[in-house]
């Protein structure tokens, strides 16, 4: 849809379609924000008390050894110089070496990022349609028992932290009833079905974590649209309640619903960190947490920036989709 709109925009007698301008503005603003975030993650953290060279060598290090290590790691350069060389490295896919084991960070991240995206992908594929469906049902039977049941269950899952949901699911589904494997082991060369079977528990947990919010806000968005005059018209002309919701309310609620979906997918970014630790899943979250404990700053900064970039990217996507979903912006007078 984006491609079609922009193509149409360019052919309108040379003038730029306003929607294209809005989208470009939003994306540019997002990239600027990402740049600022990278500065916070690099320079802000540098400004905190703490000394990387000291952290590696320990308290008993001689001043000479500290000096040598700093020179070797480039820590004697001014922070701004190091920030730009770090940023330049990131652009070209060079994230430097890990402090603790000297391995290439980009390589370590590459494989884990794939694992994490695999997990997040299936969580999204299951939770998004399910949340929208449940939201529609709850809106259709507003105030009656299906609505109360769905709302009640989702309200209680909102109050639970991710790792509690994780252990509850682990204890009951894997240990007590032994339906699924308890440890999410994946390794290269695994078949797709083996892989799916391995990640099923973490996927269930992630789905539960984001489902509640997504469903509640879908319900709210649809109920909001249901107050419009055209819904009354549709009811008066004799359409069934589900028809009214599906044909008239839902298309008009798409922008807020998409927004909610994207924000919750962004929330998956945080959930995935905890859930990976619960299930010992070899992904980005586990990688980040391990290296925070080891005080391996280059790894933490690179991984942290990737998480922040995904989060910001999904937020931009949410805004762009709601711009595109607005017919007034799509067909200007």
């Amino acid at each position, binding site marked *: 849809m984006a491609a079609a709109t922009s193509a149409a925009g360019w052919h309108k007698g040379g003038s730029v379609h306003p929607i294209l301008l809005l989208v470009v503005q939003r994306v540019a603003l997002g990239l600027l924000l990402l740049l*600022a975030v990278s500065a916070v993650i690099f320079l802000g*953290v540098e400004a905190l*008390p703490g000394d990387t060279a000291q952290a590696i060598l320990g308290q008993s290090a001689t001043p000479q050894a500290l000096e040598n290590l700093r020179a070797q790691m480039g820590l004697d350069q001014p922070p701004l110089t190091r920030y730009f060389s770090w940023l330049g490295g990131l652009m070209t896919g060079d994230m430097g070496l890990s402090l603790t084991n000297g391995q290439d960070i980009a390589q370590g991240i590459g494989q884990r990022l794939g694992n994490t995206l695999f997990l997040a992908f299936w969580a999204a594929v299951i939770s998004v349609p399910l949340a929208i469906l449940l939201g529609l049902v709850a809106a259709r039977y507003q105030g009656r028992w299906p609505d109360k049941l769905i709302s009640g269950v989702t309200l209680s899952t909102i109050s639970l932290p991710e790792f509690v949901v994780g252990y509850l699911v682990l204890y009951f589904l894997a240990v007590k009833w032994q339906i699924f494997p308890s440890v999410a082991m994946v390794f290269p060369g695994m078949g797709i079905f083996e892989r799916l079977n391995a990640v099923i528990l973490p996927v269930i947990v992630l789905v539960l974590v984001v489902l509640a919010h997504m469903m509640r806000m879908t319900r709210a968005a649809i109920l909001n649209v249901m107050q419009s005059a055209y819904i009354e018209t549709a009811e008066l002309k004799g359409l069934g309640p589900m028809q009214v919701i599906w044909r008239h309310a839902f298309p008009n609620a798409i922008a807020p619903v998409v927004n909610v979906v994207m924000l919750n997918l962004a929330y998956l970014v945080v959930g995935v960190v905890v859930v990976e630790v619960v299930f010992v899943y070899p992904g980005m979250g586990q990688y*980040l*947490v391990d290296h*925070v*404990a080891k005080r391996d700053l280059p790894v*933490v900064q690179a991984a942290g920036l990737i998480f*922040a970039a995904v989060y910001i990217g999904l937020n931009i996507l949410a805004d762009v989709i709601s711009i595109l979903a607005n017919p007034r912006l799509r067909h200007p007078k």
Partner: protein
Amino acid sequence: MRMPFSALLGLIFTGAFFFAAIFAPLIAPYDMAEVVGGVWDPVSATHWFGTDAIGRDMLTRMIYGGQTTIFVASAATILSFVLGSILGFTAAVTGGWVDQILSRIVDLIMAIPSLILALVILSVTPVTLTVLILVMGLLDATRVFRLSRAVAVDITVMDYVEAARLRGEGWAWIIFREILPNALSPLVAELGLRFIFAVLFISTLSFLGLGIQPPLADWGGIVKENSAGLVYGIPAALIPAFAIAALAISVNLVADWVLSRTTSLKGGRG
């Protein structure tokens, strides 16, 4: 005016949790670090919640753990409220470039997920109680800032604020004597939600091994210590998990009630 049953229930449970936290040394049957039984002994008359991974009394650890969790979460919440509301009110009252700078900084910090930013910071700083409270308080202050600024912007255009300005009152008077009393009720309702967030946050950090460090214990840490038992069918790790959920839900019930009372002009649905 009657209090709804759910709010009463929430209030009783919240009170019980705080009571146990404050009087922990008086209530706890054993010493926190004392090994009093075997590894993961089941529930018995002497050990109401059984024993933990190295044979310490689970009930005792739960009580002391609750003390740490509630203390850290309360301290972080207070810090975030004091800092966030004062800065938010200042931004709303002064406007102009002060407002611009503060708001843009807050936008920037809120663009990074809290947990990720906290992890990045904690990889450099030493992980002590003070640092944890500071990090949690500062990160959460951004949310309080947004709310208090939004509330205060509506109040600053009121006639009585203009009257105070014309009288020649300073910004401190306007913030504390004119805006604060009128902005109090939405802030109090938000207090509960931020407290829950702080409890979940510190529990998550401790669960990841990056929060409260031994020998101190908190609920998230107790989940972590006992999580290995779950695979063998020993549910000890679920006890602190339930405690976290119970505290979160009961504070939520109270906060909901406060929110419904303060948003309704007639004083609530009763």
